[in-house]
Structure formats: C-alpha cells, structure tokens
C-alpha cells in the first residue's frame, strides 16, 4: 500500500484536529461554572479594609520617615551653617575688640576736651549761657504754639 505523502498527512491531521475541537467546544460550553465560597463580598470587604489600614500605616510611616529625614537634614545643614558662622565670627572678634578700644579712646578724648572747655570759663558765664538758651527755647516754643493756633 502506498504511504501517504507528508502533505496529505498534515491535511488529514488538520481535519482530525478541527473535528476534535468541535467536540471539545461542546464539552467546554457545557462545563458548569465554578463559584466561590459563600460570603465572597464580605471577605472582600475585610480584605479591602485590611489593605486600606496597611496602606494608611505605610503612608504614616513614610510621612514619619520623610519628616524625620527633613528634621535631620535641617539640623545637619543648620549645624554646618552655624559652624561656619561661628568660625566667621571668631575671625571678627579681634577686629571688634580693636574697634571697641578705639571708640573708648575717642570717648575719653571727647570728655577731656569738653572738660577743658568747661573749666576754661568761670561758672557765672555758664549760668548766663544756660539762662539765655532756656529763654530762647521758651520763646521759640511760644511762637510755634501761637502759629499753630492761628492755623486752626
């Protein structure tokens, strides 16, 4: 008997597979659907709540961790900056000290000059001088008050 060619075998096999599939399709379609255990939606709700709680916890942990990190970073940067400032201030201290000393010397000179001027003139002259200054001040205040009243 003549052996069928490979092409013929393939064709026959294809036909057999198509026919088999027809049977299988019927079998598949007639197979009953499986259903979950009773209370599926209740279990889903529990799971959903659990997941939500977990996510909330995770979110809280993230917030805590990120805030902690931010505080740490702030402290770190603050410390570095404060360290730099202190170092800068430390270099300013001698300048400030010498400035203060110069100001003290200037104040002492001013005091000496004032005292020497005061002691240059007799006390009576100073009394007259202060009396004239007070009279001029009173006069000026009066003139200013009258001018203001006229305006009103």
């Amino acid at each position, binding site marked *: 008997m003549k052996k069928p060619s490979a092409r013929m075998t393939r064709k026959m*096999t294809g036909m057999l*597979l198509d026919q088999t599939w027809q049977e299988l399709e019927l079998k598949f379609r007639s197979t009953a659907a*499986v259903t979950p255990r009773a209370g599926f939606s209740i279990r889903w709700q529990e799971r959903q709540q659990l997941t939500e709680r977990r996510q909330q916890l995770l979110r809280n942990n993230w917030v805590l961790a990120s805030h902690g990190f931010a505080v740490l970073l702030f402290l770190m940067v603050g410390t570095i900056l404060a360290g730099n400032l202190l170092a800068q201030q430390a270099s300013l201290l001698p300048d400030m000290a010498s400035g203060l000393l110069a100001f003290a010397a200037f104040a002492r000179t001013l005091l000496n000059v004032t005292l020497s001027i005061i002691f240059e003139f007799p006390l009576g002259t100073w009394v007259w001088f202060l009396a004239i200054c007070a009279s001029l001040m009173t006069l000026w205040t009066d003139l200013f008050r009258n001018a203001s009243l006229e305006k009103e």
Partner: protein
Amino acid sequence: MQQEEREWLAAAQRGDSLAFSRLVDMYAKPVYNLCYRMLGSPQDAEDAAQETFLRAFRSLGRYDPQRKFATWVLSIAANHCIDQYRRVRPQFVSLEETAEIELQEARPGPEQAALTHESQEEVQRLLASLPARDRAALILYYWYEYSYAELAKALSLSEPALKARLHRARRTLAATWQQNLGNPLFARRSLYEKTIG
C-alpha cells in the same frame, strides 16, 4: 448597564467601598470562574479574584463608563492571572480536594456529581496545556463570549495576533485531547508540534 449598577458604580467612584461590595457580589462568580480556569486551584482563584476586585476598586478613576463593567473587571482578572501564572506556575488542584467549592448546578446526585467533577478536571487538565495568554484568550472567547475587538483590547494584542493565538490554542487542545485518547498519530511529538505550528 442597569440603573442600580450605575448608581453603585458612581458611589464607588466617590470612594464608597460598601457600594463597590455590591458590585463584587454581582460579579464574584464570573471573575472567580475565570480565575479558577486560569490558575486551576480554588485557593489561588479566590486570592486572584479578591485581588482583582481590589485592583478594580483602586483603579475606578480610570474606568471608562462607555465600557461594560463586566468586561473591564474580567480584563483585570485575566491580566492578573497571566502575571500570577508566570510568577508562580500554579499546579492543578483537583476540585475534590476542596470541599468548599460549590458547583453552579443545584445539588446533583452522587453519580452526577462524580461526572461533573470528572468533566471539570478534564477541562482543567486540557487548559493547563496552554500558555497563560492563550488560555485567557480561549476562556474569555468561549466562556464569556468576548468579541475579537474586546478580547484584543483586554489582552493588549492586535486582532490578527489574537486570532492566531486562538487558532493555536484550539489546535493544541485538540492535539492534547487526541494524545489523551491514545491516538498514535499524536504520540509522535514531532508531528504533533508540526501540526500545531
């Protein structure tokens, strides 16, 4: 879509999980059945179905109301099962090993129950011979009557690619069936592969 369903969806989109649990109740069976057909184990199916609804609830903001909710949620389930299958390669577990599983049919007699179990296991064994994506395509097409367009969108495939996958899946199942029947033509691995290819 029914008015009631639309209202539940709208409430769920505002974050009402109780409203969404009504939708879970409504679609638990088809989603669970798909997960079981994909993963072959009741425990994995329960876990995958629960996870599907969690993902759906979290992604409600992206849900397009023009699309059927069932189609959308089954797509999520199919893709989750494909990922799950690739990750763990689940083993087929007999329905008999899990007494809690109920079949949709109303309380059959012992003979009928045995036949049903046998049929379920046979189907599962056959499905187990397919790659995950081909299995999802076949299940959604024949059990859930998805259109080619819906299926292609759900599985992120082009329509020609989907048709090719379905053809390959049908051929693989038929060949596996013939192999199980002891057909010597399909015992020859090379020919079997050539036929499928």
